[in-house]
């Protein structure tokens, strides 16, 4: 929903990821961009060029933080070191909300650097929600948790993924970063109807939407973020907008990154769906 507690009552439009190959273009040409999403971990450093670039971007643009290594779904406690570094960054960027994933990715101090799927159990939901609450209390900024794309499911699961996501966000009282492409990828890999997912999450908790491209292989789809958004995902995005209203939307393009203009133009295609939704809502 636009302007809700989970995006700190902000009314952000279409954004793109801040990526290294575009730094020079952004700092020199100063293109008009509604907002940038940064990967928190890329800027949780102690000095040097990354922070210099970030500070220059912050002078001109709105920035929202998106993490990939909090691992809310971990059975281990959240890392205090990670939280402290993250909080320093939150103060620097003044991000209106912060997101990370409904996943795990580390155990016993070893990291996979991946977003691993979880068994959808009530026990896992309780632990995950507790981690999100701890992070939210420490960071003092609204949190949105993102659904991941996945390639495996577990015998231990007691519910569907969308039921699990709903359970977690209600227990944690947090927002949802609804990744429409991830829903599509997972639906194809696991054989469920993606519209069941979209229709059955708590829509009032959606603070942000992700759209992205993916790659099709013979027996599965991989969430590669290296293509334009495909038609089925655009259709799902349009449906999501009907359910949640005009919501901050971010195009993810993280690999084989083309020019800034190409990425930005792809993101701005979302506007036609947003405008249609606004018209329909007004009618």
């Amino acid at each position, binding site marked *: 929903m636009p302007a809700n507690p989970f995006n700190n009552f902000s009314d952000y439009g279409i954004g793109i*990821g801040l*990526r*290294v*190959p575009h730094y020079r273009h952004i700092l020199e040409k100063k293109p008009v961009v509604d907002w940038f999403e940064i*990967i928190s*971990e*890329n800027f*949780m*450093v*102690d*000095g*040097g*060029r*990354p*922070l*210099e670039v970030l500070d220059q971007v912050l002078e001109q643009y709105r920035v929202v933080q998106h993490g990939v*290594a909090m691992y809310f779904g971990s059975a281990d406690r959240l*890392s205090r070191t*990670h939280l402290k570094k993250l909080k320093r960054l939150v103060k620097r960027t003044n991000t209106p909300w912060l997101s990370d994933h409904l996943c795990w990715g*580390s155990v016993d*101090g*070893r*990291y*996979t*650097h*991946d977003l*691993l799927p979880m068994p959808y159990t009530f026990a896992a939901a309780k632990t995950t929600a507790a981690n999100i609450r701890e992070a939210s209390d420490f960071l003092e900024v609204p949190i949105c948790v993102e659904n991941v794309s996945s*390639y*495996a*499911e*577990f*015998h*231990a699961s007691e519910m569907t993924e969308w039921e699990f996501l709903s359970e977690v966000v209600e227990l944690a009282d947090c927002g949802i970063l609804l990744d429409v492409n991830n829903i599509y990828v997972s639906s194809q*890999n*696991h*054989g469920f109807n993606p519209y069941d997912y979209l229709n059955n999450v708590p829509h009032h908790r959606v603070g942000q939407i992700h759209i992205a491209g993916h*790659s099709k292989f013979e*027996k*599965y789809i*991989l*969430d*590669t*973020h290296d293509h334009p958004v495909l038609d089925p995902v655009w259709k799902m995005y349009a449906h999501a907008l009907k359910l949640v209203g005009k919501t901050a939307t971010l195009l*993810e393009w*993280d*690999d084989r*990154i083309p020019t800034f203009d190409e990425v930005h133009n792809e993101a701005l295609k979302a506007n036609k769906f947003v405008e249609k939704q606004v018209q329909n809502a007004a009618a």
Partner: protein
Amino acid sequence: MQKRWTDGSKTSAVAESFVKPNDRLSSFERLEIYNRVYWFRVLDCLYDDYPGLRAIVGEKKFLDLATAYLAKYPSASFTLRDLGSRLEKFLRQEPRWLAPNEELGLDMARFEWAQIIAFDDAALPQLTTDDVLDTPPAKLRVRLQPYLSLLELNYGVDKFLLAVKKREGDTLRDEASNTFEAMPQKKRQRPVRLPKRERLHLAVHRYDNQLYYKRLEPEAFAILSGLKQGRSVEKACLEALAKTRRTKVDWARQIREWFHDWSALGWICPAKK
């Protein structure tokens, strides 16, 4: 993915015990997707971070070396930036991965890690006149910037790496890549001639957020090393000069010039209080 689990049982059987198959992929195959993505991601990171080491040992051997390193020392940090933090330790334990260029390979691994530190390690406030006022040299202690590395080397790895990077083209790596479909691409290029043995003292640092390496004279290196170890300015200088064989140098003037340069480069910081 390894065919046997840690307890010797078949990995496929273990996978079946907790991963559901679907109509296209077995449990093992579904787990294999994650295994493949993991190795592509971490190997690609080391591939990008160590172009010099790659050029020394060769592409194929580098991938084998990197795989062995990560199997022994999996990532222990939330950031891929730290992936190579124990590579020097690994190569000292298993120098066979660098054969027949063990010493050169170690020099390069240390040099390339120093660049990672120089890129984004912390910067402390620089030393000012007020910090040193009225403090005699015998009592004056200073610190060096955390991002500054001092390396005593046996090969001209700095010039070699510049040649390697010029050959490859210095493409930037995007850390936000989500997943990978293929192993890092092997590039067919004319090999750069390996450097000859050459005793070298190098400072790896940053200035204005750009990476630099600076060759140092042995006495300068010794002074900086002494300061880094907590010696007073006087003691660091005296110990450095005690080792030198160069007698026809105006050392007072030379040391003054060095400190002036190091201050201008921002290397010198007040000692911890």
